[in-house]
């Protein structure tokens, strides 16, 4: 074992045990697997249990324990997403632009909103502006952003504990792929959003967690941070004021966390990304048990605009802002696009997406990725709005919109979704883990022609159990695709039954 080489890797992270996963990423890179003696050595050197590193090594797809020259096998859905989702498609000509407003604009990085905050606003002013804007977390379950800030500010006040502001760009959920492009195109707005939040909640430290494989984005972000530091926008006593804040980049292996934020915090501490089970919110006890505001890339992008335009004005853009969505599947224009919230699914698919290719007809749309529900044609007028979509039986999540034409079988669609969730499930809690395995096997059984009518009730009941009892968001929403397809496309199921 070349200890000098390994020591170098360890030292490059200041021997910080929190960075264990990053060290393993480097080791994987170097040796094309995680050699046992190296892992043992690192465990002893940085004083973390060997079992923790072993668990990490067996948990993430990016690691292998045996040497292999081949590229790691890609999951079918990931390959599919990469191919379909890596390009930006134009929105309507008059559509408002928030997230992509600075794309290709050399003026980016002026931090005018932050300066306005620093010069003229109190932390409470900032929070109330965000509250007025009606901004909802962009890639999760759409919780009000201002609520998080308020709770965090209160926790800091009550405890005088240090707070953390964190940006999630490690999310591996299909659809979050667009975040790579966002980071690459406008890293300064993310930093600015986080700065404003730090000012409002009283945080001194920020972390941007980026997927290791987004090397371009990491580079760009690192440059932007350096740039901001040079301009005294990050660091001690920013702009000569009694406010200090700095940000560091932490690379992540990328995991489908489905926005289980506590899971992400685990991975930031060198552990497998598995949700901890607690009803105490992260705003009180988050990263290192300290008050934490954790949001995705897209949410942060909105913050400077809210300050710039004012909360009331922001609220009037669409239904409180825009959403970046990824259009994939049987659609003419696939790729990602920023649209105002409130736009109907019909507009989205037919005006922006260009409709269904090759003269086939629209059959269904699945909103929210594999955890989302599938809607039939008569629901196409549902607006893309957090509350409306939830009412309709789905989530917006990170904005993956998959279209199915009439050659598709919705049992297969549901099966694909569940297959993905089954392989990505954390594995900790029984309903999440067993439920997805059982659902998949029942669906497979049906699609092989061995199903029976009662299976539908069984499926429904399992989905209900999972929705009520699961630990993770992934488990809770796993049933959406099945419940919605049984509801709207029951014929696809009964077609398989023999009698």
């Amino acid at each position: 074992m070349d200890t000098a080489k390994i020591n170098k890797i360890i030292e490059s992270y200041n021997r910080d045990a929190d960075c264990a996963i990053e060290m393993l990423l480097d080791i994987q890179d170097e040796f094309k697997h995680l050699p046992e003696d190296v892992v043992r050595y690192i465990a002893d050197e940085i004083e973390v249990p060997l079992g923790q590193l072993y668990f990490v090594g067996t948990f993430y797809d990016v690691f292998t324990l045996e040497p292999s020259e081949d590229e790691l096998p890609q999951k079918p859905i990931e390959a599919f997403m990469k191919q379909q989702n890596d390009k930006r498609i134009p929105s309507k000509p008059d559509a408002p632009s928030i997230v992509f407003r600075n794309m290709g604009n050399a003026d980016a990085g002026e931090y005018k909103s932050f300066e306005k905050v620093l010069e003229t606003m109190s932390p409470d002013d900032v929070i109330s502006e965000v509250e007025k804007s009606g901004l909802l977390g962009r890639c999760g379950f759409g919780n009000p952003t201002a609520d998080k800030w308020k709770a965090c500010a209160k926790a800091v006040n009550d405890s005088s504990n240090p707070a953390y502001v964190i940006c999630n760009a490690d999310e591996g959920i299909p659809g979050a792929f667009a975040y790579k492009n966002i980071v690459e195109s406008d890293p300064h707005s993310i930093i600015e959003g986080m700065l404003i939040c730090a000012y409002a909640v009283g945080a001194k430290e920020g972390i941007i967690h980026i997927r290791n494989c987004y090397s371009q984005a990491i580079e760009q972000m690192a440059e932007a941070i350096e740039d901001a530091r040079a301009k005294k926008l990050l660091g001690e006593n920013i702009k000569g004021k009694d406010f200090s804040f700095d940000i560091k980049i932490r690379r992540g292996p990328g995991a489908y966390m489905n926005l289980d934020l506590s899971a992400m915090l685990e991975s930031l501490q060198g552990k497998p990304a598995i949700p901890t089970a607690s009803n105490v919110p992260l705003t009180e006890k988050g990263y290192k048990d300290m008050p934490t505001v954790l949001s995705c890339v897209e949410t942060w992008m909105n913050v400077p605009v809210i300050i710039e335009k004012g909360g009331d004005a922001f609220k009037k853009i669409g239904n409180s802002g825009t959403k970046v969505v990824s259009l994939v599947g049987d659609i003419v224009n696939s790729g990602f696009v920023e649209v105002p919230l409130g736009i109907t699914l019909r507009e989205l698919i037919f005006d922006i997406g260009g409709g269904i290719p090759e003269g086939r007809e629209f059959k269904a749309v699945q909103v929210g990725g594999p955890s989302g529900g599938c809607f039939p044609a008569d629901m196409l007028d549902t607006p893309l709005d957090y509350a409306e979509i939830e009412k309709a039986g789905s989530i917006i999540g990170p904005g993956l919109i998959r279209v199915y034409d009439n050659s598709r079988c919705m049992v297969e669609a549901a099966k694909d979704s569940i297959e993905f969730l089954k392989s990505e499930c954390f594995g900790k809690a029984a309903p999440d883990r067993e439920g997805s395995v059982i659902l998949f096997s029942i669906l497979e059984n049906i699609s092989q022609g061995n199903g029976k009518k009662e299976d539908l009730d069984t499926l429904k009941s399992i989905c209900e159990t999972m929705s009520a009892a699961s630990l993770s968001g992934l488990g809770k929403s796993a049933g959406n695709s099945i419940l919605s397809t049984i509801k709207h496309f029951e014929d696809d199921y009964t077609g398989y039954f023999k009698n």
Partner: protein
Amino acid sequence: MIEITINKRKISVEEGTTILAAAESLGIKIPALCNHNILKPYGACRMCVVEVHANGEKEITTSCNYEIHEPIAVFTDSEEALNTRRGVIEMHLARWPNVPAIKALAKANGVDKPRYEHPLKNESKNACVLCGRCVRVCSEGIWEDIITFAGRGAERKVSMPFDKFYERCAGCGACAWVCPTGAIQVTNEANHPVRPKMIRNWGMKVTSQMITLDDQQCRMRKIGTGNLVEIMDDYDLLPTLNYQYGSHENAKKINSWVWQNEYFTQGLPDGCWYGCSMSCAHAIEKFELKTGPYKGRKVLVDGPEYETIAACGSNIGNFDPHYVAELNFYCDTYGIDTISFGTALAFAMECYENGVITKEHTGGLELTFGNKEAACEVLHQMSRGEGFGMILGKGIRNMKKLFIEEYGADLDFVEDIGMENKGLEFSEYVTKESLAQQGGYCMTNKGAQHDEAWLIFMDQVNNQIPTFENKADALHYFPMFRTWFGLVGLCKLPWNDISPADNAQTDEPHKIPEHVEGYCKYFTGMTGIELDSDKLIRMSEKVYNFQRVFNLRLGYGTREHDRVPYRAMGPVTNTEYESRQERYDKQLKEKVGIDPESMSTDEKRLKLREYREDQYRQLQDAVYKRRGWTSDGVPKLETLKKLGIDFPEVVEVVKRYPDV
């Protein structure tokens, strides 16, 4: 306190209590597979779901990890909760149909045959159900983190790193003990105990007490014996400036919180005995030395324990924790006992301050109380065999002789303040107000240590042994009981540094009856020989008396050798008297029956001394009698006979003494 309702019954709970715990206190049972009362909630099995109404909203949620922070209404068996629970149990049953724990839960909750086939069905009776108890106890309880989960999703399994036996496993068996299915079994019993289960069950009982109660009791896991510093200081028992006083305003600078927060590494497995859940051995990492041959180096300090903190701290007037640790490190490195060193140095310092010795004797060292640099220097001298270090290194008994015979010191003063018995320096408790502990220190075989008996709290604070007979009983029972630990080679700390939650309700709480019984079980489990507390004492009594005879053969072991330096009994100087005047005056009035009003301090001090020395004599009479010894402290023949150690050589030794 927060008032909540569970199934419409009201209960007030402490904020942060879990729903599961609150329900349990009402006698309401909620099925819970992954939960275990000695472990932190984990939320994996999801069987413990209940319906919670809070702020007008209703949700189904797990109860084991739900902390109560506001008034809520809980329904453990609402239709929705029940259906969800059944759904979850059905999944378990489908995967592990033959595991008794799962079958029982299914039966109790009305789940029959699963409606589906589980593709990963495992028909073993001892299948692992992925509850994570083993992983958690190894981490939270034993701090070893050996056994771990591996894999993701359905691939998740319990494993050791790289899927093979991990040589660092302590083999403590805690994981097997908490496993609800028997998936982990202890197969290799290294020492071939006769009844391994008996030992394991008892061991785990203590482990579970450690994990759940230690934080509220002695904080052994966080700080070790150092937890005593502030307690001793509060009760005027912390030796200060060579045992003159029992407390000091600066004691807070070396109390347990300082060690816990600023010095000790936390959460590491025990360095003293692999797999021990008490983990009381604590260490300071990366400690930078200021003196001596390793000056400037960063080292690991093993400790300090309470005794070291007092000996190398308050007793020599040093309230700088750094120097306590420094002395600790060098004592360890040179192979010197920290207690003997500290106590001997405290004696030398008091002699220096009183002009008994001067710079001439110390080679220029300013040996005043609190001179921490000088303290280090003496220690280094000792290791090099140089200067005053050579004198101090010979211990108090030799120093006294030297000071009296060569330096012309006042015999009475030096004898009074030289804290040794049978040549062994006192350990670190002020015994002035505890007659029983004076006996505990000096009516010993080994000299002045608390390993044979530690009765201060029982005697002075809790007043549980008021009469001479009570005290004599205690000075019979405890030295015997504690000797037994040495006989069998077991650690004494799990006996009384952790107590069962209901110990106070027992007949003899100071003996910790449940734990005595536990030690008997260890013995019986290992050897197959039944043991109870009487037999245990009898075992030690043989050895203890034999040791006494051994002392006699070497010229020790009679009454005169059980003498106490007066500093351990009462105030030697007027300043000492006056510092606690109220207490001493009161005793003169109430116990001795004289009115101190018009007396000078000198007179009062002498009267008190007369009284206390007489008390000690009476105690000696009572103890010797109880131990079956003559009034000179020699084991009687009948005692030796009764114990079956009346071997000719033994009898020959004691026969030389009167009244045997």
